[in-house]
């Protein structure tokens, strides 16, 4: 084999990215102490009007081209930050850790003492202390869909934690009416009345709208109060101006852009500012803002069930493409979601892999990080969720304590199948090399397409190409999905262009920047 690698001299091309010679950054310093930020108020009228009309139109007129994700490291991975903590992306996570990792203090201890009411959000609930004095938000299922939102919240919350996101510790709690008392002086915020004294009748009213189990008990999702001071949601665009650590515009954050793929996996359509949460925390002597995703109860098909929208996950709530097209095609265009059917289980709704097209998935409310996302962001997210294996999924679904085993099995099957459909869609869109390393004069990597069985190992190969895209050398992919090409020698800064070859066609080239036998960085997709 001809040992030719393309050696590019430093600064040969003005737009060619080049990396400094330093270790890969697996953490960023966005936990510097800051003074307490203002609480950000969520104004949903203005928020939704912006999403669907006002900001939507001015954004369209900006004619923005793709902006690469910010805050990623030289390997195009997301480093640890106040937003994200690498877990399954960089190490093995056991099924038990996937379930318990988020639990700092363990489940609540009955009985409940109600200390306040909760009127915001889709479902009413209350705030209560458990027997040990820890505070929880207690929410119930909708009467029409027992177990749906409580199970969904448990499963999706733990999947998000496993992937690396900050989420609250949520638990299923089953209790009887007798296990609820009320603390005198509790307040409840009511529409038009503001905060008023809460009465036991308020609790009864909340319980009356909640489904009862066969044994007469109530099943609730209880979410432990996050440590620190709540300061509102995360704006889907721009920065929190009073947080000096917040320097990457949110629409450019890869971990938020990844919601295009992760959201599609679990059908988390209720993606909006209200379901994110900033908390001013004190950790290791530093006071800074930590960013959470919360309220997963409307993922899977629960948001569609609540809104009675089968198109949930397929179209925005108001979709400037689908709905005008529906008008002008006079009903002749049968949309994909119209083939969708409810599953037999109210706890699951219409969550299935059938008629699922990852690329055509839409959140209910346009989310700017998703709107601005691109191929590299989707690849990263697909790579991440492909690491969540079936035992982890099974264990997490088990934690949701669904009373119908078939419903639980359906969720497992659906999550596995949707994960694979996503992987097949996005991983094979680029040259899917991972775990790159230089050793013994070779540059080796894992071909994810082969590893996950998306392509036949026998038909997969890796080409080294020059800057005219001519093939310089080719290496076969092993049965273990590893593939190696000669690594550049010497101390010169070298860019190796690689391209996965399949029997049908080639994947777009990627770059690996090497100096002195070390990988300095990669460019996953040459734009």
């Amino acid at each position, binding site marked *: 084999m001809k040992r030719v690698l393309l050696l590019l001299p430093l600064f040969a091309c003005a737009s060619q990215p080049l990396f400094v010679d330093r270790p890969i950054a697996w953490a960023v310093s966005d936990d510097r102490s800051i003074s307490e930020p203002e609480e950000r108020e969520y104004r949903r009228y203005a928020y939704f009007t912006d999403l669907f009309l006002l900001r939507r139109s001015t954004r369209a007129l900006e004619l923005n081209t793709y902006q690469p994700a910010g805050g990623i490291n030289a390997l195009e991975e997301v480093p640890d930050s106040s937003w994200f903590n690498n877990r399954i992306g960089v*190490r093995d996570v056991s099924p038990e850790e996937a379930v318990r990792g988020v639990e700092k203090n363990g489940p609540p201890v009955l009985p409940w003492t109600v200390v306040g009411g909760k009127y915001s959000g889709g479902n009413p609930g209350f705030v209560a202390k458990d027997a040990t004095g820890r505070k929880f938000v207690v929410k119930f299922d909708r009467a029409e869909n027992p177990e749906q939102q409580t199970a969904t919240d448990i499963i999706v919350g733990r999947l998000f934690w496993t992937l690396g996101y900050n989420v609250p510790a949520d638990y299923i709690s089953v209790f009887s009416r007798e296990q609820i008392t009320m603390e005198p002086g509790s307040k409840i915020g009511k529409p038009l009345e503001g905060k008023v004294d809460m009465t036991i009748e308020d609790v009864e009213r909340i319980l009356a709208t909640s489904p009862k189990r066969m044994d007469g008990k109530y099943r609730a999702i209880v979410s432990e109060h996050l440590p620190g001071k709540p300061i509102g949601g995360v704006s889907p665009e721009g920065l929190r101006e009073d947080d000096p650590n917040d320097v990457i515009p949110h629409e450019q954050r890869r971990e938020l852009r990844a919601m295009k793929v992760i959201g599609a996996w679990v059908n988390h359509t209720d993606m909006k500012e209200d379901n994110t949460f900033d908390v001013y925390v004190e950790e290791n002597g530093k006071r800074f803002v930590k960013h959470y995703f919360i309220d997963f109860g409307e993922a899977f098909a629960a948001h569609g069930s609540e809104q009675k929208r089968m198109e949930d996950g397929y179209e925005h709530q108001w979709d400037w493409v689908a709905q005008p097209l529906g008008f002008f095609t006079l009903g002749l265009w049968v949309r994909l979601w119209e083939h969708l059917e409810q599953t037999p289980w109210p706890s699951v709704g219409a969550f299935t892999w059938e008629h699922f097209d990852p690329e055509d998935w839409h959140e209910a409310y346009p989310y700017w990080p998703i709107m601005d996302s691109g191929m590299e962001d989707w690849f990263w997210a697909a790579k991440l969720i492909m690491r969540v294996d079936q035992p982890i999924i099974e264990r997490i679904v088990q934690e949701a304590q669904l009373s119908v085993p078939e419903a639980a099995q359906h969720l497992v099957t659906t999550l596995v199948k949707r994960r694979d459909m996503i992987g097949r869609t996005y991983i094979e869109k680029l040259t899917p090399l991972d775990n790159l390393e230089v050793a013994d004069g070779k540059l080796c990597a894992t071909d994810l397409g082969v590893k996950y069985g998306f392509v036949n190992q026998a038909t997969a190969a890796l080409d080294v190409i020059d800057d005219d895209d001519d093939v310089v050398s080719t290496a076969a992919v092993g049965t273990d999905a590893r593939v190696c090409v000669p690594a550049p020698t010497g101390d010169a800064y070298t860019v190796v262009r690689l391209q996965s070859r399949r029997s049908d066609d080639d994947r777009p080239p990627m770059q690996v920047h090497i100096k002195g036998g070390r990988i300095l960085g990669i460019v996953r997709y040459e734009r």
Partner: protein
Amino acid sequence: MTIAPPRAEVAEPVKTEVFTADTLDSRGYANDPEGVTGGDVALFLPRLVFTPIRWVLTGVYWPVRGTLELFEEHEVVGHVIDFLYNDERTAAIVPSISLFSKSGITLGATAFHKDLFGHDERISATAKFLGAVVQSYELEFTANHLGGTFLWLETQFRYDKQPDIRFYGLGNPPQVTGSPMNLDPYAANIETHYQQERILGRMRVGTIIDLGVGELRIGGSAIYNHRRFDGAADSAKDRSLAGTYDTNRLLGFADGTDLVEATADLILDLRATHAQTSRGIYLEAFFGGVPPQGQYDYLHWGAEAVGYIDLFHGTRVLALRLAIEAVEGGNDDIPFFALPSLGGAYRLRGHDYDAFRDEKSLLGTLEYHYPIHKILQGVLFFDAGRVSPDYDTLFVGGGPNPWRFGGGGGLILSSAEADILRIDISYGDGLFIFLSTDSLAGSYRRRAEKL
């Protein structure tokens, strides 16, 4: 019975020391590879053009957004609903709007209580102004099971003053132009205008039989109508009826009428839902008439059937309607306004209200509904109808009683319970636009409008 899985303590592994970068420098670029791209160059001019437009839009949006924020902060919508509705949400004052391109906008409001005695008894008071009516006041009470009994009761009392009603002659006369006078209504068709003052009293009593798959309503109605007419047009530019037609040949016009009509009524409602109906049948029939009162004495009957055919998944629906109405009596027994008519937003779209009148009318409708959004449907429709002095020429043949056609499309905005707003654009004898927040369900309600 669910079994909670066993619990085990799991701690997140402690991370080994990693290289921590400044957030903005996490990528570790030695240069600035972003730079100006080819796309940026290509888009430079369009961006330049769009920039002032964006500024203007942002300037326009700013107060909109500010207003919305104020609305939310002060719970304006909640306060408005709270003001309009009672605490139990059983009583309210709701505004209404309707528009017919030839009549203009009619604004109104209805105050109602929908559960007066605890069995869905509804009482309402409505006032409307402008447009087709200059003033209209109505009191209505309806109960499907009055006080929880078998009794179905509807009562209605209305006063209205209509300054501009169009009249186009009777039967199917040829159109004429110019400034004719003293025309025979059966001999010439020309748009004229007149005014009407009316008092309507109506009571319907019956019972509702639950069929499991729908309901059957059987009852009887007594309807009192006091009408007084003025042949003058409302504006100087409009041609008046009195100045154009020989009003002596319009029975009841000169002196007005005070008539009582009695009918037996039957309604069979087998629709799956009353909003976004996808399948089922709605059938309504009445038979009765005006017993001898002065010179007036005639029979009046009608029937309307609507079938909904689900073409696909309950979202593409074809609705077929057939409606017939007739009066039976001598030429000198039936006042002109009692003649069945076609035209307007419900009966033969694409033509003005009451554009065609004669002793018999027949109407067929083909209407196709398709989905746009969960709460929005598109509609395409085609209406065909004719009026005729007798049954022979109503059903067959052409001749002097031609079929009239109208078609168009529109949008229906619905909630889960009812249609909220309908906009139709139709073309037949000209272009007509119709918009209404009034309930469109139930043709018997519309018949009451026409009484």
